[in-house]
């Protein structure tokens, strides 16, 4: 990430916080890839045959492949296979292996019913649902009998089968503070072959050493701990994440330079208390190979602002202005932190565009904590002379307008400045003074010459214009 992208405007543009923020702190976070085997809760829709067979088991309490053939009309080839498949998925089981309900032979008067209030199944007396009739004559041979398991009853009620599937996944984390950043798909082919060795256990940052505990937390707790907010929008590939696969190990590597992340903490004026600041945290991730930058809120860090920023977290705007080496000005209703300046500093703080604007003034860099920080200031002139000098600076950026109509350009520029400053009482300097001062700037001479050209070369002879021959 180049330094240019760490400028406050760039950092805040994506999150629509630029116009509201008055301070921003940012630092790069070291990020890591964690390769782990994860357990996911997977749902599989039951096929019509499975549903019919399970319903038969539910109706009969205990049944065999011959019952399936007899009542559902499936052939000799199919019925045993269906029974075998359902048994393999643990939806039915031999009677000895399940502590479930074993009704007498024949159609039953009771049924497992899902109770949403309890969140589980209960046994309920129901009238026989069907009037069954045999489609084939029963076989006299001794077929093994099966009964519906609890999992089978639940699957029949929901129409889906839930089960756990383990899958190797690469997760992208920042460790300090612990932040889930996303999943990584750079696992195949050449990229995989070029990967370095996993970090030694002692080198792995502490939060990642117990990542299995963190992942095994409930979704809400997990969101609090690492910002993995599954309930809002499950990260791609992590739908149904449950935990690390018990007994499986995980590997940690430093993320490649192509991916990087920085933590952005934006300060907004706290309306409740004058001069105090409310903080919001964001994670800005960049994947160079995709040329994508993503910025998302990191709400789980906002309870730790004091820990992250130290004294800065409680510093008011006055303290920040002082730290920036600027002179505070009385508060105004306009956005940005008001500061007083003159000369070149005032021009600089009014921005580089052709209109005055609030700008970001850097706070001193403290190398040890890695933070870079800025405050957004509204620069006000310290004197009327400073205001005039600022006018000259902005006129220098409006050469085209000056050449078109000098007076109108000066009027418009002055009007914008006093409006920006909230100082309508300031008196506009006269055109003679402005021209004299602009002429001192060699690069402005062309504009001044162009401005006077019609007066010198056109207007005096305009009376002849209609009299061509």
């Amino acid at each position, binding site marked *: 990430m180049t330094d240019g992208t760490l400028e406050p405007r760039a950092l805040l543009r994506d999150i629509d916080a630029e116009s509201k923020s008055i301070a921003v702190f940012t630092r790069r976070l070291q990020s890591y890839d964690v390769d782990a085997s994860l357990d996911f809760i997977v749902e599989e829709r039951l096929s019509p045959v499975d549903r019919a067979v399970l319903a038969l088991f539910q109706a009969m309490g205990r049944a065999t492949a011959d019952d399936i053939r007899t009542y559902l009309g499936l052939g000799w080839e199919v019925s045993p296979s269906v029974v075998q498949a359902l048994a393999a998925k643990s939806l039915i089981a031999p009677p000895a292996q399940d502590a479930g309900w074993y009704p007498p032979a024949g159609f039953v008067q009771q049924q497992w019913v899902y109770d949403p209030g309890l969140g589980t199944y209960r046994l309920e007396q129901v009238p026989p649902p069907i009037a069954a009739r045999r489609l084939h004559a029963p076989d006299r041979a001794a077929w093994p009998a099966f009964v519906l398991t609890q999992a089978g009853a639940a699957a029949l009620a929901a129409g889906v089968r839930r089960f756990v599937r383990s899958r190797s996944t690469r997760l992208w984390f920042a460790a300090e503070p612990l932040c889930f950043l996303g999943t990584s798909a750079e696992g195949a082919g050449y990229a995989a072959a070029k990967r370095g060795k996993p970090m030694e256990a002692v080198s792995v940052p502490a939060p990642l050493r117990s990542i299995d505990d963190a992942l095994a937390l409930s979704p809400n707790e997990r969101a609090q701990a690492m910002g993995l907010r599954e309930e809002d929008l499950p990260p791609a590939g992590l739908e149904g994440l449950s935990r690390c696969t018990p007994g499986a190990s995980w590997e940690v590597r430093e993320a490649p330079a192509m991916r990087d992340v920085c933590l952005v903490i934006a300060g907004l004026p706290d309306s409740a208390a004058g001069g105090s600041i409310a903080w919001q945290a964001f994670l800005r991730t960049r994947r160079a190979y995709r040329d994508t930058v993503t910025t998302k809120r990191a709400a789980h860090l906002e309870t730790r602002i004091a820990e992250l920023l130290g004294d800065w977290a409680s510093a008011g705007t006055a303290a920040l202005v002082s730290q920036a080496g600027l002179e505070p000005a009385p508060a105004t209703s306009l956005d940005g932190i008001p500061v007083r300046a003159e000369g070149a500093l005032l021009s600089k703080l009014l921005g580089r565009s052709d209109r005055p604007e609030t700008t970001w003034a850097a706070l001193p860099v403290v190398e040890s904590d890695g933070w870079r920080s800025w405050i957004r200031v509204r620069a006000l002139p310290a004197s009327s002379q400073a205001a005039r000098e600022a006018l000259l600076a902005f006129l220098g950026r409006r050469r085209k307008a000056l050449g078109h109509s000098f007076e109108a350009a000066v009027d418009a520029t002055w009007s914008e400045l006093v409006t920006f400053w909230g100082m309508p009482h300031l008196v506009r300097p006269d055109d003679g003074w402005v021209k004299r001062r602009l002429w001192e700037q*060699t690069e402005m*001479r062309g*504009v*001044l*010459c162009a401005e006077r050209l019609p007066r*010198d070369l056109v207007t*005096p002879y305009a009376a*002849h214009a209609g009299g*061509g*021959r």
Partner: protein
Amino acid sequence: MSRAPIHAAVGAQRLEGMYFLPGRIELPAWVGGSAPVACGSSSRAAYLFTDEVARDYQIRDALLHLIRGASRKVFFCSFLFGDAQIVDALIEAAERLQGGVYVLTALGKSLQIDTGELDEEFSGMPAQRRVEQQERHLQNLDRMARAGVWLRSARDCHAKLCVVDDEVAVVTSANARRNAYEDNPENGVLVREPAVARELGRLFAHAWLHLTHDESPPGAALDLKGRGGQERRPPAFPALSGSGDLVPVGTVQGIEASIREATLDLIENARRELVIASYSAVSLRDHVVGRALRRALERGVKALVVLRPRNLHRDQVDTCGFLFAGVPDERLVVLGHDHTHAKAIVADGQRALVWTGNLDGKAGYDSGIEVGVLMKDPVSVSAARSHVIEIARRATHRSIIRPTLHEIAAVERSLAGAWTLSLPSGARPGATALAAMFEREAVFWTEIAHGKLAIRLGDAAEVIVRVDEPQRKLISERLMSPPLPERRVSGIMGRSEITLVEESAAPRTQESAPRQRRNQGGRR
């Protein structure tokens, strides 16, 4: 095997046209006695001149006075800027007025464009001095551009003009060069009449706004930029207006030709005399001004003409021959002055035209940009007449009609003595015909490369030769008959003996060889 050599004696033939030989003559009585030359000044105008002897630099003094007194704007037009005082004054004015100084000059490529007189002056200089002049000019332009002077260049702009505040103006023959203001006989008019100055300002403004093709914007280093939209037709330029004894005139690229009309008016209405100073007199044989001047001389109008003596300028030789041949000496005096650059026509001592052009039928009357002032007030007219006569008194050359070749060769760069011209076998025209041409025609030569000359035999032939100086041999490389269009002449063939030798070994005819080669290439 060589054929017998043929000999030609060169130098005795007569040259058509008018030439100049060093020397002075007494001015005829009708010119009048020696009147003191003074700055003829009235409330509306003042005649200005450079007196290199008395070190009276009126033109520059007047320009400096005007520029330093400017309160609103300065228009200045000069092909070259070599005079530090004028440049400094323009810079100071731009600083003081915060702009408002507009200049028409030669920028970049314009320096190379053939502008007639100036190009002649330029090309006549030694190469080193020409480079120095150009460098000084560009340095001065750069200084002015940085200071806020707005520079533009217009094609064929030859005017030398300064207009200040539309109140006063100077029209002058002098470019803004030190030697023009101090060394050359130059002249001009200081216009104090605001109505006239304003008209001159209008002409300048029209040219500056609509007829320029390049510019260097003010407030930056000299930076040549083309101006877009020049293909658009410029707006109409209403004719210059003036009345009474001071009338502005001009030539504006075919849309204003009042200089031509004023010149014709002066010449055609002259009853007694014409006193004329010009750098040159060229291309007038088929021009209304030339025909009018010839008719005036034929009807008995006396004339005193001072020109720059340029024997190697074929056009001037021919034009002067057309204009002045056959006019009796008591009615016509044509003199040459090595440095004259003044431009004036004074008719009958009553009216005078001072302008920036020349007696030039190609440029200045119908095309290009020139300015002038037609004066009737006796003081200014008298001053103009006296000044031209004074230049004539200081003339360095007298004129001569139909001199012999060797008379002119004696005063110009020449090739003389015994030479052998070796020709290829079968060359056409042959040695005999060429020998006759050498004895009959005007023989001029042009140095086209180091050690290589183009020898022109009138309008009959041209021989490209390599010069073997130690052997006194001219080896023919190419022979053309008729010759190519005329080249700028470097020298003249003096009294000499040419031995023409036709070599036997040369296999090809020089004239047709290139065409043959092209044809063979085509067949392949």
